[in-house]
């Protein structure tokens, strides 16, 4: 699929003429004497990609593009493709999606407790620069999310573009804003007194009940903190975008269109510096047939028949369409400028999957690529297929690129070797 820049601009219902980024840049971030803003989009395509179509045959810089990577050929120098990476001890087929950004082991075991996700970890350091610390999106139904708090509690993701748009861009009237600020203050004072109530309740209970109340207490405190920050944001205007609220397309088969809509929203959110951390779960587990010419079987079913020629063709169509949407996103980010850079130069776009081979429910050798973000790209970093590198090593590299000085995250043994700035 060739990407036509004009169509990129025209795009979907939410493509729009945008004010210049530099004008848009909130005074906020600059006030805090911050360096070049760094951003991240993390995408999990939960049915993954056929390994033979995704991974290139050769390693290094002069590798030949695989069938899937040909779809995004024009960005060859802007991304690195990885092979031989996975999360150690993350097993359990489809249910490993919860661990994709957390690396928490054995998600299907009885006592499983998740850990903090990459975006939330980063948000603790850079979340306060923007109106929304993170934006957690989802393409597809269900309650899934890539984002988890430090306690391992799932942070819900939003499926409806209209609601995301509303939160990002729809500005209230002056009196509405005042009323909102008052409500936030009221919320803070409520949270404050509730915090006290929970503490005193906590003295009356024991065991797991107390842990539960503690989780409640932490959440209330977090809300209180966020309400305080929100109050500051509330008095600042939301970015203006010249577009109507996008229509929510909930046709399960409209995977491509829905993916496109969500990616566009993600780009807009970054472009307007509404957030710097976006997660997008593209979930197809529930098995719909994708509306594409020539595709007759449900997506999930196709992944289990990829050994047959006919069905393989159908799956290839679906996956290439998904790669095409990634290309669109990269194209959109390339076109936007910020200072001397393109937006892509300052945005890491991670696309991966919690499954290395959906047909076999294999959770090793995950198909991962990273685009943009200021790295020296244009290579295939191949690690051992039998003894995989921890994917979290890549996450450490990404955290460092976001300006967060850490050597540890989840199962990481350090930063990923071979990926340089």
């Amino acid at each position, binding site marked *: 699929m060739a990407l036509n820049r004009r169509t990129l601009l025209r795009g979907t219902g939410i493509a729009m003429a945008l004010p210049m980024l530099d004008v848009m840049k909130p005074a906020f971030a600059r006030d805090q004497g911050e360096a070049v803003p760094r951003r991240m989009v993390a995408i999990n395509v939960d049915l993954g990609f056929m390994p033979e179509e995704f991974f290139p045959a050769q390693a290094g810089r002069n590798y030949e593009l695989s069938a899937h990577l040909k779809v995004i050929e024009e960005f060859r120098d802007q991304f690195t493709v990885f092979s031989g990476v996975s999360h150690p001890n993350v097993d*359990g*087929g489809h249910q490993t999606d919860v661990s994709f950004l957390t690396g928490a082991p054995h998600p*299907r075991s*009885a*006592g499983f407790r998740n850990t903090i996700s990459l975006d939330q970890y980063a948000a603790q350091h850079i979340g306060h620069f923007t109106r929304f610390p993170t934006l957690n999106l989802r393409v597809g139904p269900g*309650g899934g999310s890539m984002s988890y*708090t430090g306690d391992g*509690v*799932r*942070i*819900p993701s939003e499926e409806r573009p209209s609601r995301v748009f509303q939160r990002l861009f729809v500005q*209230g*009237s002056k*009196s*509405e804003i005042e*009323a*909102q600020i*008052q*409500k936030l203050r*009221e*919320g803070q*004072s*409520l949270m404050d*007194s*509730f915090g006290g*109530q*929970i503490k005193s*309740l906590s003295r*009356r*209970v*024991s*065991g*797991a*009940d107390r842990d*539960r*109340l503690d*989780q*409640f207490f932490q*959440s209330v405190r*977090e*809300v209180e903190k966020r*309400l305080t920050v929100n109050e500051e944001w509330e008095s600042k205007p939301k970015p203006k975008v010249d577009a109507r609220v996008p229509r929510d397309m909930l046709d*399960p088969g409209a995977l491509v269109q829905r993916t496109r809509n969500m990616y566009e929203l993600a780009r807009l959110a970054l472009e307007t510096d509404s957030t710097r951390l976006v997660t997008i779960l593209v979930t197809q587990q*529930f*098995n*719909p047939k994708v509306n594409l010419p020539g595709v*007759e*079987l*449900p997506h*999930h*079913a196709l992944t*289990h*028949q990829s*050994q047959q020629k*006919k069905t393989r063709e159908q799956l290839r169509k679906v996956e290439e369409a998904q790669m095409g949407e990634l290309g669109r996103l990269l194209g959109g980010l390339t076109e936007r400028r910020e200072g001397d850079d393109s937006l892509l130069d300052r945005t890491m776009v991670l696309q991966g999957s919690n499954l290395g*081979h959906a*047909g*076999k*429910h294999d*959770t090793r050798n995950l198909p991962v690529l990273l685009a943009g973000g200021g790295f020296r790209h244009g290579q295939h970093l191949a690690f051992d297929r039998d003894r995989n590198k921890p994917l979290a090593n890549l996450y450490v590299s990404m955290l460092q690129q976001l300006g967060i000085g850490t050597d540890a995250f989840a199962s990481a043994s350090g930063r990923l070797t071979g990926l340089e700035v």
Partner: protein
Amino acid sequence: MIKIYWLGILFALTQSLVCRADSTEFLKQYCVDCHNGEWAEADFRVDLLTHDLDSDFDAWALIQHRIETGEMPPSDAERPPSKELSQFLTALTDSLVDVDAHRKKEFGRRELRRLSRTEYSNSLKDLLALPHLEIEDMLPPDGRAHGFQKSANALDFSHVMIARYLEIADHALRKALVTRPDPIPSRTIRAELKSTKGVRETLQTLAVQLKLGHAIPLVGKERDPTLVRVRGNFKKREQGSVTDPEPRFDGVLTMMNDRFNQNIVIKPFEVPQSGYYKIRVHGWGAINDRGKVVPSDRTETVAFYSKSGRLLGRCDLPPNEPTTSEVTAWLNEGEPVEYLAISTEFEKFNFPSKSDPKYEAFKAYGIALQWFELEGPLPQAWPPESHRQLFGDLQLKASKTRITGSSRQINRTDAGASNFRVITKTPEADADKLLRSFAQRAYRRPIRPADLKVPMEMVRQRLSQNQTFTEAMLAGYRAILTSPDFLLLLEEPGELGSWELATRLSCFLSNSTPDGPLKALARRGELLERDVLRRETDRLLEAPEVQRFVVHFLGNWLDLRNITLTQPDENLYPEFNVFLTESMVEETKAFFTEMLHKDLPTSNIVDSDFLMINQRLAELYGLDGVSGSEIRKVAIDENSVRGGLLTQASLLKITANGTTTSPVVRGTFVLSRLLGDEPPPPPPSVPAIEPDISGATTIREQLAAHRSIEQCAGCHQKIDPPGFALENFDVMGGWRDRYRAIVKASNGASKVIEHGQLRRYRMGLPVESHGELENGQSFADISEFRALLKLRQRKLARNLLEQLIVYATGEPVGFADRAEVEAMMDSLESSNYGVRSMVHAIVQSDLFRHK
């Protein structure tokens, strides 16, 4: 402090475990060979196991389970002598029971939890007297633990959740307020489908259908011969037109049930105020036979929906007799009403025919429509109940200045309170009185003076800023609806008090906060008396709110909530439509409700002498004599292939993917959901089996190959047979003797028209539904399989009882509960494990009456 004491008990217990059964020796001899080190079988390491039952309880419980079910030690390994085995098992079980019982005594069976999102939204509906408030989707979905959203593990807290409560409470409270001081008088709006103007102004979809030649204009019961259609040309930007010389048409025959761009709003309908309305439609059933309107032989159905997808009601229209049919429905202010001719067959605008008009190319059932009417709002008390819950009888006065509410986060219509003011001379005293009465209804315990402190502060603060009394009160109410006391279900270890018991009962059977009568009994402590508790259980079971339990329970137990996640393939199953999905869900709900109300034996899960169906389902099941959309009880033949939940369309659809069915999926469903015998998950890195839709091989052949792999055989011998028995049912629950296979349009698609559409499938290989159960019993088809299942009545009942226990108490049956559950099973035997008896047994049990 507590922890140390606790460890002390454990120490004593584990000591006794070692003494009683020399467990270490047993494990050494029969388990550790395979289950040790890095390469331990199933990743289960016995060598790391400690005798501290506190930390390793789950692992010991697993050992107990595997040995009890005979799965371990495996048959090809050294088996212990049966005496040694049973000694070990008894000792281990006793220890686990002891530890579990101590734990439960100390902390209670279940952990403290918050209201689930369904309980929260129902509670708000009940408290605010807003039965049709739509807020559930505004909260993030809850997790699932042990199959339901009823336990602490499924009901996490996050800052997102807490923040959302603040927004939702405000949204809901504003919906409860009147928008004007006086009620709007009822009026009747009629929308007629007379000639082109009438159609255009009434229903866009019908205007488009006429223009494209899909719908037939009618004069009386005959086709209008004079309509002139000029089709537009999109490329040349020509609009096209429809003109209607005399005689003008006065009705439209439509064959289409598609939502077509959502242009199905009845445009003249206006809802100036929330309340009950009557919606009417005038029309009849007819058939389009390639352009000729001919008499029909069946009743058709028009359905009305809110824009948010709420079914408002259905109107049946009999064949050939012009009839007015009406429904009464609650409509929210400003809410558009949508129409769908749901019973019709034809769905697609892109009908592959060169004929013009299109209707000359096919034959299909249709609905002749002449007009729609909306009457209302029907008279109601003023101010409405919802408003009085918040402001009692305080006087209202129209206000001149519009104050915009702080509503933009949710919805602009939230700003309802701006058109009037609530008049009070003594704001503080009124506030105190109103808050007190509201808190009494909201909290599930007696009110303490401290409860009003925070809400009153909120009110005073607003009043001191010269805000309206209304705004000030809303702030106070928000403080109540978001407080820990409202959100949390607090229980103390030991026997429940009457308030806690009332809350458990209402969360169980109404999925909400206790209602007035239940609270009155709790206040007086009478609920603790067994016969009072029994009477209340009966009352709640008879109440309409019991449907919330039915929906939620079935939604999770049988995955009914997932019914729309996949749609039958339009090429393979052209006869499928939305009406069928709606009907099959209603069938299963009605069927379970019948089991509940009539105390029917559990065996009805697999077989019944009646069905709960409507016309659409009767068509699917091949039964005659059922006409209309309403679900009713119908007796069936003894040798019918239907009967029981097992062969209901909903279950068969949920266990299919829209295109194909898999015995593996269906077999797993039957084992885990109906028999409580969940097979272990497939090992990693084994390719799954999916049916081949080219029609070359049957799934049975593929599975036979799969079972020949030793690694797979063990489980699939158990999983596949129930699935085989259901092979005669297709993806939407219809009967099949042969599989359908897709025909490629390129290799000469058939010209057969079926259900108003070109048939795009052919009949493929024949279905085989015989099989052999793990224990060697064989069956030839679904009927024989059903007979075998009925023999396992106690197993079916035990599973249903356990599912209900999880739902009612939030916790699965543990070691310490086993004895009581066995006793319950015995006492239920005389009722043949009647479902209503089960509910009573649970409510009266110690499991339910203790934390």
